[in-house]
């Protein structure tokens, strides 16, 4: 076995660059090509030559040497030719000729013919074994070339194929078949066998490389542990890279050892490493995951300087954000918004936090303008409501109305509808405000609260929160949380932001707004409840994506197209809108329930308001959501940042089992 492997290893070795397996996996990791794989001239089957030499047939041996030389100019005959591989029958010359010429069907026929002609005759054990190995090789490589991995595994399982005596390249194909069948354990055993038996460094290293590229790292580590001391030096960078990637994929728990990190960092900083901007970027993501944001920042920058892409810029923006450089993060996200939507989303979400503060900070007009542009271009409900609240909270009600109508078309959340109704009231468009409040009666208590305001709220956790905020703002010592006691909402009391309207006291009463908490019930009672259309009719197309749609989606500007003749269905079901709301699962109590008004049962028969509300729902264990650290849900963290921004790293192994 060992000898055979040695002999054939060279064949596999030389094929490494060209074989479908090497190109499929080996090239996934840049710079992972084994040096030894460039060995030329040893792609030679010397079996026949060795047979002739061992049986003393000098003439035939010379002829075979000439033939092989012609085929492989770089090849030189081995010195140990006379060494016997196995005893062979002396009258097998013609059979070995066929074997040497790869004429396997003819060889099979010749053997059968001779068996028939000479009863009792059998080919030598050596020829039989070699013939079988060659057949196996041809069959496996042929099936692998056609991607018939399932068939290979099927034959292996049924005992129709035996891998004993196979050469390294064939074994690699067998391992590929197991992997393709999601049986990594079997593939690992094949690789381990090669490492036990093969002696030449080239195929040994290439086998480890294949394991790194194709198995999970914990599996590949078993193989690495089998290597001889110092043997893996030539691929140490690849191993370090794979360990870093495994950490990023949560395939290994502990951080990567310093030695590996340093080795890879040196490589990533070298001219060779910098040719591929993904190399420094990998270290950026590694440090990002460890929350070492400064190191992450440095590596992302280095990557960007060497051609790093929008995903690297995305990592950079997040690192900047964590380092408190929000302005810079905003610029990076803006600059890279086109090639990667992650950056568009991050750009919108970063500034959204500032824009929706109850007391908005100053934002330069050009920043607001470009934020508005991106919002319109991407039809972003998040951006539209942020600008709306900013306008509202800075007393620009006309602008607020424009943005709120878009926000309610794209993103009709409770605070957004609430903001639209408030703005309409400010602009004395009470009738329109009432339409929106009635439309969302039973769904958005906050909007209905405009009509039924609470004059005295019972103490809630939110009131506690208000006290904390007041204490914090007055500089009073002893804010709970300073000493680690958890705050009810988020970690930083400065981060009170009230677009949600949950903290109604956070809103600054604007001049002239006296009476907002008075008793408008009587005044507005005629407008509530009223019947309104159930559908939200607002539609706006993204800027530059065609004409805006009119009410109820009626096309106002689309050119006649080939569907112009098509009709739409009559909505014969929307016949009336009741005056009494019904329960909606996931919604809390409606404000007017305080006065004894009741709601109808919900669609599923539910008769009480929901607690917790859908917005307070606890994350089911096992979801990513449930694993988010508390600081991630703090109000200063944009939604886009709650998502793991890491890109999929390319060295991922297929799932096992």
């Amino acid at each position, binding site marked *: 076995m060992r000898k055979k492997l040695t002999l054939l290893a060279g064949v596999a070795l030389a094929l490494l660059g060209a074989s479908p397996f090497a190109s499929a996996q080996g090239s996934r990791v840049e710079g992972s090509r084994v040096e030894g794989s460039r060995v030329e001239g040893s792609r030679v089957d010397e079996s026949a030559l060795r047979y002739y030499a061992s049986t003393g047939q000098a003439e035939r041996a010379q002829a075979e040497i000439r033939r092989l030389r012609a085929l492989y100019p770089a090849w030189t005959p081995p010195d140990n030719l006379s060494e016997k591989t196995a005893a062979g029958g002396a009258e097998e010359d013609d059979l070995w000729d066929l074997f040497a010429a790869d004429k396997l069907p003819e060889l099979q026929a010749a053997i059968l013919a001779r068996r028939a002609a000479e009863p009792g005759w059998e080919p030598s054990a050596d020829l039989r074994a070699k013939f079988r190995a060659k057949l196996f090789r041809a069959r496996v490589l042929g099936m692998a070339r056609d991607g018939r991995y399932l068939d290979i595994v*099927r034959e292996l399982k049924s005992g129709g194929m035996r891998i004993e005596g196979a050469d390294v390249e064939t074994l690699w194909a067998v391992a590929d078949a197991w992997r393709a069948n999601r049986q990594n354990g079997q593939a690992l055993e094949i690789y381990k066998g090669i490492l036990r038996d093969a002696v030449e460094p080239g195929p040994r290293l290439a086998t480890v490389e294949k394991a790194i590229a194709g198995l999970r790292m914990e599996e590949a580590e078993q193989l690495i542990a089998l290597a001889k001391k110092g043997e893996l030096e030539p691929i140490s960078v690849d191993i370090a890279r794979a360990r870093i990637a495994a950490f990023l994929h949560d395939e290994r728990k502990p951080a990567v050892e310093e030695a590996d990190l340093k080795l890879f960092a040196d490589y990533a900083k070298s001219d060779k490493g910098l040719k591929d901007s993904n190399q420094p970027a990998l270290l950026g993501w590694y440090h990002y995951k460890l929350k070492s944001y400064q190191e992450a920042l440095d590596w992302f920058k280095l990557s960007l300087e060497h051609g790093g892409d929008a995903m690297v810029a995305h990592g950079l923006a997040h690192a900047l954000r964590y380092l408190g450089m929000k302005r810079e993060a905003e610029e990076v996200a803006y600059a890279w918004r086109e090639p990667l939507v992650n950056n568009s989303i991050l750009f919108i979400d970063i500034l959204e936090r500032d824009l929706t503060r109850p007391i908005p900070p100053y934002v330069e007009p050009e920043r607001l303008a470009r934020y508005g542009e991106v919002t319109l271009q991407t039809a*972003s409900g998040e951006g539209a409501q942020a600008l709306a609240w900013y306008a509202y909270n800075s007393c620009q009600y006309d602008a607020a109305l424009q943005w709120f109508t878009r926000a309610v078309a794209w993103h009709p959340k*409770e605070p957004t509808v609430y903001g639209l109704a408030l703005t309409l009231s400010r602009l004395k468009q009470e009738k329109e405000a009432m339409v929106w409040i009635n439309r969302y009666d039973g769904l958005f208590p906050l909007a209905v609260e405009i009509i039924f305001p609470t004059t005295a709220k019972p103490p809630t956790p939110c009131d506690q929160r208000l006290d904390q905020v007041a204490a914090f703002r007055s500089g009073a010592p002893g804010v709970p949380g300073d000493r680690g006691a958890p705050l009810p909402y988020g970690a930083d009391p400065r981060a009170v932001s009230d677009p949600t309207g949950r903290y109604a006291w956070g809103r600054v009463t604007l001049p002239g707004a006296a009476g907002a908490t008075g008793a408008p019930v009587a005044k507005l009672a005629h407008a509530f409840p009223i019947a309104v259309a159930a559908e939200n*009719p607002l539609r706006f197309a993204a800027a530059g994506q065609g004409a805006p*749609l009119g009410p109820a989606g009626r096309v106002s500007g689309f050119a006649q197209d080939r569907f112009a003749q098509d009709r739409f269905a009559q909505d014969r079901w929307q016949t009336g809108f*009741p005056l009494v709301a019904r329960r909606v699962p996931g919604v809390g109590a409606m404000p007017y329930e305080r006065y004894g008004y009741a709601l109808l049962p919900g669609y599923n028969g539910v008769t009480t308001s929901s607690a917790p509300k859908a917005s307070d729902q606890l994350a089911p264990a096992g979801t*990513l*959501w449930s694993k988010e650290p508390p600081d991630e849900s703090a109000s200063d963290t944009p939604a886009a940042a709650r998502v*793991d921004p890491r890109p999929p790293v390319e060295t991922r192994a297929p799932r096992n089992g």
Partner: protein
Amino acid sequence: MRLIRLAMLALAAALAFSPAHAQPVEDAPLDLDATEKKLGGALKAPELWALYKARFISESGRVMDSANGGISHSEGQGYGMLFAVAADDRAAFDRIWGWTRANLMVRDDQLLAWRWEPNARPAVADMNDASDGDILVAWALVEAAERWNDLSYRIAARRVAVEVGRKLLLLGGKDGPLLLPAVAGFSKEDRADGPIVNLSYWVFPAFARLPRAAPEVDWAGLTQSGLALLRASKFGAAGLPADWQSFVDGVPAPAKGFAPAFSYDAIRIPLYMAMAGVGERAAYAPFLASWERTGAVAAVDLGGGGERAFGEPGYEAVAALAQCAVQGKKLPGDFAAPRPGQNYYPATLQMLAVIAAQTRYASCARS
């Protein structure tokens, strides 16, 4: 089934002379084309689309369930968006998507309220979502973003897809993540027999496309978990999956509080598998056997064993598609024929089957 078996034996005997193909056919791997396919413009049946619009989609973009009091659900909106992009009808797509976001995106996250009733105050019936609706809408947005190169669709697709990955996938399963049917009500915190799953919410053809929106989510793992769950979900004499299943300690069983039936939901399982080109022969076998036995596509009571044919042609289209995919059967001549009397749901299934046949199974078309 007996007929199939006989036919297969005969076939196997015929093939036995050719040693390279000595595998019996029923044991041979199913070689489906699972490559990623774009949906944009794939539907080559304008009259089918025109009829669908005229019967189920309002001018404002609401997809109406004609058999259920004209209600709408996130799933229906998602189907409507998919069909519009498959028909390359951007104006219709914008109507449906415009209605969907304006009326269903009322939750405080990026998912969609699942149920909307035209004559109720408020029209949104439930703040809960349905993960198949979320997935269908995200998938349709991915297709639209590619078809019409629109940044706003791409961003919306990502926001929804990421939220699905964040809130609805239970990670850590040995076969891949599990898909919760909704954010609320189905987890093991919510129910003693939780988590509850609905296999027909595994929209397999979406999982090949959603990496375009959210590559960090394990969509491929979702395909694996769905197929593994199906392998383990064989109930009643028919060995079929139930619409709603509990999954306590990784063991599937028909869920309490739901009819133990293979019914309107689960009929989509073989449809989605064939649409995506995934699933082994064994995965399709119980469905094919059931249709063979009853001679029609039927709901099956997995407790008592009663069978009731669905009755409308759209359901038969599902069977025709699966028989084409697995057995190479030609599609019936009226496979893509418009059926003016058909209700919303079977009409939707027919549209899906036709799109699948036209994108992946051209060889089953009658010449």
